[in-house]
């Protein structure tokens, strides 16, 4: 295998790569701005420069030339090279800033130059705390600036489109944003305009940046020049926790980070998963963040009245036990695999029937990329459990002879599969996440449901990839599984909390519970306890016993998920 020597260490490499990416893969950090693995390599920021060379060879014999100590003589490039654009070559010798004072000085000078016209308004900048310019200036930059003149002024607070705001003074002209619209979405909506120290990205005259993926430029921007309109000045980065999880926006299973402060989702950003969404996500999938915070259903209810959870469990168990007609169950494409699986077990317990899940497939909604036709995140998970897309007419005919309808995380009235009138004479038990749920007024027992940001579980995306949900925000009654998943012990709140600590804050906790808490409570009361120590064990059982989930254990799914065996089209 070919070798490259970086700071005196030999590394083997596969032919065809570039030096910067190779170093990053090896854990050798080299400061950089314009390089992004998914975009072309313009090498325009000049930050990633290193010293590089090749061993000298005798022209006639091709032999390596050695010095008097017998060491190979290295012919260095006469000038430092941008590592992002430098092809790896066998025998190449590289010195980075760790090894060479010369390289460190070059990088510091480059940063000093980059900061000449930068406003240094970090105290009011949303990017501060997660800013490559700030971090790298701190680590590799000079201590101060020798520039004592008025800086160039450029447009600020420019609304480029519905979702993106530009502060041109902060821009370092790395062109990541323009390359994104040119190369990734090919909407070509941005271009660098003007020249020299006066340039910045802009739309063509009269046009706006309304690319459905526009906010990815905010993630790409290595400074605070492009920011998400909905998130500007909402929270400092260090006040939020960031939890890796999966979006419930459609069946694509977009990997995301949920940013939380005071138990509210304030921001959603894409998390790299090259098998699913690469580095991107659509704007629409970010703008759902308020759904998790607002209009949430709080506290268990029996016939519309707030009751203790225990009372609601007792009532639901009584209804299930005393049912004189058939008991119907609806699974949910919004609920996790675990919850749907427990639902099927509960149905078995009471001799009921799981009729299916309500499909949210909308032909033409998708864009063939990260927005799918299916609005719900887990239809595939239901299918793999043997729960099929619901036939509304079947539901209505079955309802005639039914006495109980048990609905997991859904809203059949709003979905149009039945009307309030159809529910006359049927006792409805409902898990609902929102107070605006239109089936709620017809529910005898209502359990507020934890949403994907509050639960532990698994979604299977439309391509059959099982991916884990992690709890990003706390709910009112945190149980041991949730505590463990959030990485905190039971007593952390009163002991170690500071005002900036996400565990310290007790506001905005929704009084709801995940299905995997509620359903076993009911099973207990029905005399058929489910002995799972949390959702992880539920999934272990499925991975073990159901071939459609083989391999999908929590450790295996980890952060990037597991591609499940193809089970073919549903029968």
């Amino acid at each position, binding site marked *: 295998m070919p070798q490259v020597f970086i700071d005196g260490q030999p590394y083997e490499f596969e032919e065809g790569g570039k030096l910067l990416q190779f170093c990053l893969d090896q854990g050798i950090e080299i400061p950089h701005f314009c390089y992004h693995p998914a975009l072309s390599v313009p090498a325009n920021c000049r930050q990633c420069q290193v010293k590089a060379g090749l061993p000298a060879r005798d022209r006639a014999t091709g032999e390596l030339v050695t010095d008097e100590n017998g060491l190979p003589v290295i012919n260095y490039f006469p000038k430092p090279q941008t590592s992002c654009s430098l092809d790896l070559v066998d025998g190449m010798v590289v010195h980075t800033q760790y090894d060479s004072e010369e390289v460190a000085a070059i990088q510091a000078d480059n940063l000093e130059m980059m900061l000449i016209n930068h406003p240094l308004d970090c105290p009011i900048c949303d990017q501060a705390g997660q800013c490559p310019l700030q971090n790298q200036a701190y680590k590799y930059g000079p201590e101060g600036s020798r520039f004592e003149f008025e800086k160039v*002024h*450029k*447009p*600020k*607070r*420019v*609304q*480029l*489109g519905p979702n993106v705001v530009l502060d*041109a*003074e902060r821009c370092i002209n790395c062109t990541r944003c*323009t390359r994104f*619209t*040119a190369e990734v979405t090919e909407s*070509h*909506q*941005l*271009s*660098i*305009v*003007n*020249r020299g120290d006066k*340039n910045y990205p*802009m*739309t*063509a*005259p*009269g*046009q*706006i*940046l309304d690319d459905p993926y526009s906010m990815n430029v905010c993630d790409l921007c290595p400074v605070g020049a492009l920011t998400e309109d909905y998130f500007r000045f909402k929270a400092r980065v260090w006040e939020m926790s960031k939890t890796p999880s999966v979006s419930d926006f459609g069946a694509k299973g977009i990997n995301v980070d949920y940013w939380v402060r005071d138990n509210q989702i304030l921001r959603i950003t894409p998390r790299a998963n090259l098998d699913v969404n690469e580095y991107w996500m659509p704007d629409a999938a970010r703008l759902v963040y308020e759904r998790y915070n607002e209009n949430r259903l709080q506290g268990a209810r029996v016939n519309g009245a707030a009751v203790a959870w225990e009372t609601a469990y007792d009532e639901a168990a009584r209804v299930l036990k005393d049912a004189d007609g058939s008991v119907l169950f609806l699974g949910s494409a919004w609920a996790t695999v675990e919850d749907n699986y427990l639902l099927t077990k509960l149905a078995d317990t009471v001799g009921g029937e799981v009729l299916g899940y309500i499909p949210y497939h909308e032909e033409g909604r998708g864009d063939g990329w990260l927005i799918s036709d299916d609005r719900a995140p887990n239809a595939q998970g239901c299918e793999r459990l043997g729960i099929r897309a619901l036939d509304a007419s079947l539901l209505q005919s079955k309802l005639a002879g039914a006495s109980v309808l048990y609905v997991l995380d859904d809203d059949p009235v709003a979905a149009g599969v039945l009307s309030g009138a159809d529910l006359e004479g049927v006792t409805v038990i409902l898990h609902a996440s929102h107070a605006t749920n239109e089936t709620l007024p017809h529910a005898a027992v209502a359990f507020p449901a934890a949403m994907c940001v509050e639960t532990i579980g698994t979604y299977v995306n439309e391509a059959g990839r099982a991916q884990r949900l992690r709890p990003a925000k706390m709910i009112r009654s945190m149980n041991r599984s949730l505590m463990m998943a959030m990485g905190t012990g039971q007593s952390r709140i009163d002991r170690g909390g500071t005002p900036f600590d996400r565990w310290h804050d007790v506001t905005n906790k929704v009084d709801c519970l995940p299905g995997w808490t509620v359903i076993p409570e009911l099973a207990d009361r029905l005399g058929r306890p489910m002995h799972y120590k949390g959702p992880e064990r539920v999934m272990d059982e499925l991975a073990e016993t159901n071939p459609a989930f083989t391999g999908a254990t929590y450790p295996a799914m980890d952060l990037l998920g597991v591609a499940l065996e193809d089970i073919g089209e549903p029968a």
Partner: protein
Amino acid sequence: MTPNSFISPQPAYVPGEPVERHVADEELVWTEDEQQQIAAFRAQYPTHDGAVMKGLWLAQDKFGWLPPEVIQFVAETLEIPYAKVYGVATFYTQYFKEQKGQFVLDVCTCFSCQVCGGYDILHYLEDQLGITKGETTDGGLFTIQEAECLGACGSAPMLQVTNGPYVHNLTTEKVDALLADLRAGNMPGFQSVTLPQDEDELGGNRRSDTDAVTTYQTPPVSETLH
């Protein structure tokens, strides 16, 4: 402006705001001859992007300047993104993004010209025309601009007329004569400036204004298009 009254500048076109039209749709057509030229530009490059500069240049020749609708027209003609063409047009000062006078006087005030009196020439012009740099005279005849080095430092101070001929070794008298000529509708001709290697040919006088040598003449860029 006092130091504390800073208001951030606006972009030339605020995204989404309506753009004033200057050229009517029916005027946005290429003649047969222009179409042939464009086809020739395109043939010169592996991709259409390459023809963008010549396309813009042709459009500026035709419309006098490059309002947004003309830039968009060029983009559509060459089948390349509008934003990209706009970016190119704003990069070069020689593409006029605002309406200019009939004669644009680009006075060089860069280093060599500056030490040889470039600013004196600029201010003299401003006095003569009653406008300051960046402005256009009332009748729309002259625009004065301050330019960076135009590559004729050897005959500083100098100016360029409307992206075309250079006027070298400027003096106030020469400025007066130039203005009179231009008012009469006469563009200055191309004037050869000699290089050190021509000294022999010119009898040792390389600061001569004579149009003696033809050897090194290159025609003005604007003429190369026709």
